[in-house]
């Protein structure tokens, strides 16, 4: 170690200058992460593209197909149905998350004593796993032992238990409720961070000018929160578009494959039917859709913030 340290202080004798040594040191520091990314991320990504051009069974020889997998998608009824279902789900789950997240953020941004405790409680479902929370909700929603039916029956709101998860629309509603419970805290914290970044003086100045609470909310807070909203929206929309766990566990894609999402359809092709090439082609299409979605959302945001 002594020789190494002296080498840093004075330039080494043979050729390597201090800046060259630091260059090599820097490369060595980032090398493990770079190798990891190359083998476990970049390589599989390229491999997805390559596999998508093949008929690729789990065992046996892959055969080159060209773009046939992509052509096959056009006639794959379930592919279009799952894209449409995922889109419906995303459109339906996003508004309740945002309305409730905004209301909760306003609530935990107040000067109430103990407000930190409430903030923590609303956030807790975020830190448990989606798979586990989906199982929890399967039980809560169960028609025989579930407490949700139990409470609705006790309150005389229903006459017999509702079988939530075997009807497409009821299942969609129930799953949205469970996802709002599970994820709203995340958007709440993002919005709260945005709210706290707005200087108090702006509100005080407006209040002196006689602006009401509602006016301060709509004319100061909401415009200044626009970029936070956009960020939270992008994260939430992409997350919803990748939905899998909740449908795999809560409805198993049923009834009659009506609740199969895009990722679920990739999963079925790759790991149930072992059509790995077709699954890869579906993955590439999903990647393109998500890329386009985030570009559109970020564009819309930029146009609006520049006025």
């Amino acid at each position, binding site marked *: *170690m002594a020789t*190494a*340290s*002296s*080498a*840093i202080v004075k330039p080494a004798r043979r050729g390597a200058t201090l800046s060259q040594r*630091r*260059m*090599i040191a*820097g*490369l060595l*520091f*980032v090398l493990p*992460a*770079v190798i*990891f*990314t*190359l*083998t*476990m*991320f970049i390589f*599989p*990504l390229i*491999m997805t593209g390559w*596999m998508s051009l093949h008929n690729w069974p789990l065992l046996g020889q892959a055969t080159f197909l060209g773009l046939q997998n992509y052509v096959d998608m056009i006639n794959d009824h379930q592919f279009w149905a799952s894209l449409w279902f995922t889109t419906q789900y995303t459109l339906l789950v996003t508004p309740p998350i945002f309305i409730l997240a905004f209301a*909760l953020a306003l*609530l935990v*941004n*107040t*000067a*109430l004593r103990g407000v930190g405790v*409430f903030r923590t409680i609303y956030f*807790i*479902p975020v*830190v*448990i*796993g989606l*798979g*586990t*929370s989906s*199982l*929890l909700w399967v*039980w809560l929603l*169960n028609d025989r032992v*579930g407490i949700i*039916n139990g409470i609705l*029956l006790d309150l005389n709101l229903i006459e017999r238990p509702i079988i939530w998860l075997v009807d497409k629309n009821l299942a969609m509603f129930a799953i949205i409720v469970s996802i709002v419970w599970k994820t709203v805290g995340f958007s709440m914290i993002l919005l709260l*961070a945005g709210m706290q970044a707005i200087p108090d003086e702006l509100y*005080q100045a407006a*209040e002196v000018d006689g602006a009401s609470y509602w006016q301060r909310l709509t004319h*100061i807070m909401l415009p200044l929160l626009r970029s936070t909203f956009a*960020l939270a929206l992008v994260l939430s929309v992409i997350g919803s578009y*990748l939905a899998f766990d909740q449908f*795999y566990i809560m409805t198993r894609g049923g009834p009659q494959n009506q609740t199969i999402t895009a990722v679920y359809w*990739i999963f079925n092709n*790759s790991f149930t039917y072992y059509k790995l090439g077709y699954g*890869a082609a579906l993955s590439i299409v*999903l990647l393109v859709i998500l*890329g386009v979605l*985030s570009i559109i959302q970020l564009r819309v945001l930029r146009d609006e913030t520049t006025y």
Partner: protein
Amino acid sequence: MEATLGSATIHSPASRIRRRAGFFALYVIAIILAALFLFPIVWSTLTSIKPPSEASASPPTYLPSSITFDNYIKLNKYGAGIARYIFNSASVALITVFGTIILSTLAGYGFSRFQFPAKNVLFIMVLAALMIPFQSILTPLFLLMSMVKLQNTLIGLALVYITFQLPFGVFMMRNTFDTVPREIEEAALLDGASTWQMLTRVMLVLVRPGIITVAVYAFLNAWNEFLAALIIMTQEANFTLPIMLTSVRSGYYGAIDWGALQAGITVTILPCIILFLFLQRYYMQGLMGGAVKG
């Protein structure tokens, strides 16, 4: 409510009373919401300590009539026993935590403090995984894992999780190193510290908050992840807790043991909640640093 959007300097007594009433109403709303958010978790935990017959009672009962751990004993009869699944989940999570910390800290230090060719390209490449969902590369990852015989191993699953965690970890650690003033390094350099000593003796202490943040995320994501574990682990003895729970839910011959399921859910979610309650500050810093700035 008034207090939320800045407060005016002068208040009449009447407005103070209105303000009190407003605060009271807010408390009531906040408490009702808190009860709704906590209810599923609390009721699940309570059900796990009910006698098994009560846990499967229809219609359901609210509070346990007596406290037993019979559901946990029944849970232990599934597959290879609950201890095995806790061990699987904990091993995968800990390997992921240590792997992510080591790789992210080294890379964060390199990207923050050194100049080298293709630095920006490499940085963007590592971060690119943030924009590309892992769901889309699972098929080749699965093949890669079977090729190198790591399919169905705890190490293999942990390697996949480390890959998913790296973009956030490297980004977080680069930013954390960026906040350390350069004067501290210069002083250490004058004292004759080598680059490696600088990192291990001087910098590691200063970037500890960043490391804890990266560790908390790595642990929670590895402990909770479902889809990759479902694909990589095909033998029951290697399942992690969330996958094992789905087989409890499937039950024996279609009859679901609801009490055992609640015991399993409790075992799975309590570590996450406890970890979060203790390290909440670091978790939130990660959310702000990783999401808002990024």
